[in-house]
């Protein structure tokens, strides 16, 4: 049976209302505080150390995102974002749908001439815009502090790479927002929904990266020669790649690294990660990768992230359509 009328009637109204709600909420205040703390803290740390090096660096600004002190437990700004972005997204999305049921506003809203599509999509877009606002503010803050303290303007390529990174970060936020909203559709209790989303976050962001090397070592065919030299075998590397990309944060770090670090050898020496290894294939050592090549390398990860957003949202959508309205 075909239904009549556009599924997008009312998306704009829902979006504006939810966006205004988010911006005025306590959660937004928390997000703002986090943005300032992370921005100022990590940038100051990076600049303090970057100043000490006299080595010439063509991508000084990008280093602000990547700088990590040797032998320190403090992650780079990138690492911190990989942990914090999902948390922020969960914070905005975990009660998106079930709170409407708990406030008993759901049936009244759905009795208005809109489809359920509009409600879910409007809420998702509002959450994403809120996160994008916060992340853009953070990005501008970092660039601003960099400009003030280093006194060197960023090159146009650095700015472009920075914007690409911002978009990847917003995509990661979208993934976790969609996941949080899926839980908010499935569970009527906001507490259950929040706990499940946080549980998944804990597993994918913290636990999974620790498990991947051991699993890779267990399942991959060992190579006695490589083992003797203390290197990973080809099969182990393949498994390592595949497994670590299961986590959206793995995909995010991969893509962000490739975009932010065009100097391949420096990358390998400083932080050997999965993305670097794949980037090395067919590379001239010491050369700088042009922007479009970097984007091309990061493209599979970016599209995968977008695909995750769409498929998780689709599942949430189907679950929501089938839900009974009565509380």
């Amino acid at each position: 049976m075909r239904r009549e009328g556009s599924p997008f009637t009312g998306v704009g109204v829902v979006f504006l209302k939810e966006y205004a709600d988010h911006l005025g909420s306590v959660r937004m205040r928390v997000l703002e505080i986090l943005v300032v703390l992370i921005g100022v803290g990590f940038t100051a740390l990076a600049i303090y150390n970057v100043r000490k090096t006299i080595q010439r660096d063509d991508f000084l600004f990008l280093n602000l995102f990547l700088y990590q002190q040797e032998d320190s437990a403090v992650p780079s700004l990138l690492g911190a974002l990989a942990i914090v972005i999902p948390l922020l997204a969960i914070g905005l999305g975990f009660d998106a749908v079930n709170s409407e049921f708990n406030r008993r506003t759901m049936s009244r809203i759905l009795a208005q001439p809109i489809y359920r599509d509009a409600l879910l999509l409007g809420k998702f877009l509002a959450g994403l815009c809120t996160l994008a606002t916060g992340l853009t503010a953070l990005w501008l803050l970092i660039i601003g502090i960099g400009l003030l303290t280093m006194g060197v303007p960023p090159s146009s390529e650095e700015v472009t790479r920075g914007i690409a990174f911002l978009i990847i970060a917003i995509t990661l936020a979208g993934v976790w927002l969609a996941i949080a909203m899926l839980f908010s559709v499935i569970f009527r209790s906001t507490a259950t929904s929040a706990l499940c989303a946080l549980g998944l976050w804990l597993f994918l962001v913290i636990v999974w990266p620790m498990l991947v090397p051991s699993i890779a070592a267990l399942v991959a065919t060992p190579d006695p020669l490589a083992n003797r030299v203390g290197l990973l075998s080809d099969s182990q590397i393949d498994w390592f790649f595949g497994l670590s990309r299961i986590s959206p944060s793995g995909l995010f770090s991969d893509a962000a690294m490739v975009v932010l670090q065009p100097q391949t050898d420096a990358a390998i020496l400083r932080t050997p990660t999965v993305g670097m290894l794949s980037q090395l294939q067919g590379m001239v050592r010491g050369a700088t990768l042009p922007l479009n090549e970097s984007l091309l390398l990061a493209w599979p990860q970016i599209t995968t992230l977008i695909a995750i957003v769409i498929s998780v949202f689709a599942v949430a959508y189907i679950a929501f359509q089938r839900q009974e309205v009565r509380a």
Partner: protein
Amino acid sequence: MTDTVIEIRGLRKDYGRAVAVAGIDLDIQRGEIFGLLGPNGAGKTTTILMVLGLTESNGGTVRVLGEDPVRNPLAVKRRVGYLPDAVGFYDNLSARENLLYTLRLAGMPRAEAIARIEKAIARVRLSDVLDKRVGTYSRGMRQRLGIAEIIAKGAEIAILDEPTSGLDPHATLELLDMIRDLKADGVAVLLSSHLLDRVQSICDRVALFNRGAIAMQGTVKALGQQVLGAGHAAHVEADGVDVEARLRGVAGVQKVERDGRGWKLTADRDVMAEVAQAIVQGGGRLQRLATAEPSLEAIYTRYFEEHKDAA
């Protein structure tokens, strides 16, 4: 003029093996107040949700203002106002913002919505708290705000689910007044309730729900005759004569019972004049003579007593 706004034929809904609504037929006319009555879980709310297209039926048809609420839900929802059981609003927003949101969802231009909200709020007497947060509202005020939403939306049909539950007697009376006002505007009102005496006073027709089916429908008076078997009931208070014997002597009287200080009689026709005459001629002093409307409560109780085996 009869003008059917809601037409339900053979409507069914089951949740797995449990039957919520088992094939009901209903017609609701423009400008009438129709009551869906019955115990909790009898299928009243499910019926309402199917009329609104918020739940899909398992069979049968619904036509609301000539439209199918499943196939063309937006057209139906644009013209129907709904006040759910224990209605909720966004507590952090004011009454004005809450209504503005729903009216904008209904596709109304902002300026028109603002003007309509002022008027509707005045009608439900909430003007002085229009810009207060709804979180500070009492239950009765929320229900009135829900009515204001229906008025502002300009709905042709108002569907109210348990509008008076949880309200104190004063708030209930106020709300019933507002429902009567809706009817005066030519709005068809469909309301569900398990509070019978209140509902009786405003409903033109009622349908008695039992286990997903409509046991009876019609005017309260017609149902009274059907269930209580009494065409006319009257209450008589008199002294100075053997009242009971006198009453029994009147042609048409079927039953005479002692009831408090007086007697309750049931007859197959209007016997008021004859009763008065019989008592006065016998030398008695007639102190009170009143017709008793069949009470919905009595009909309801009697019906469910008689159908206990079925239930």
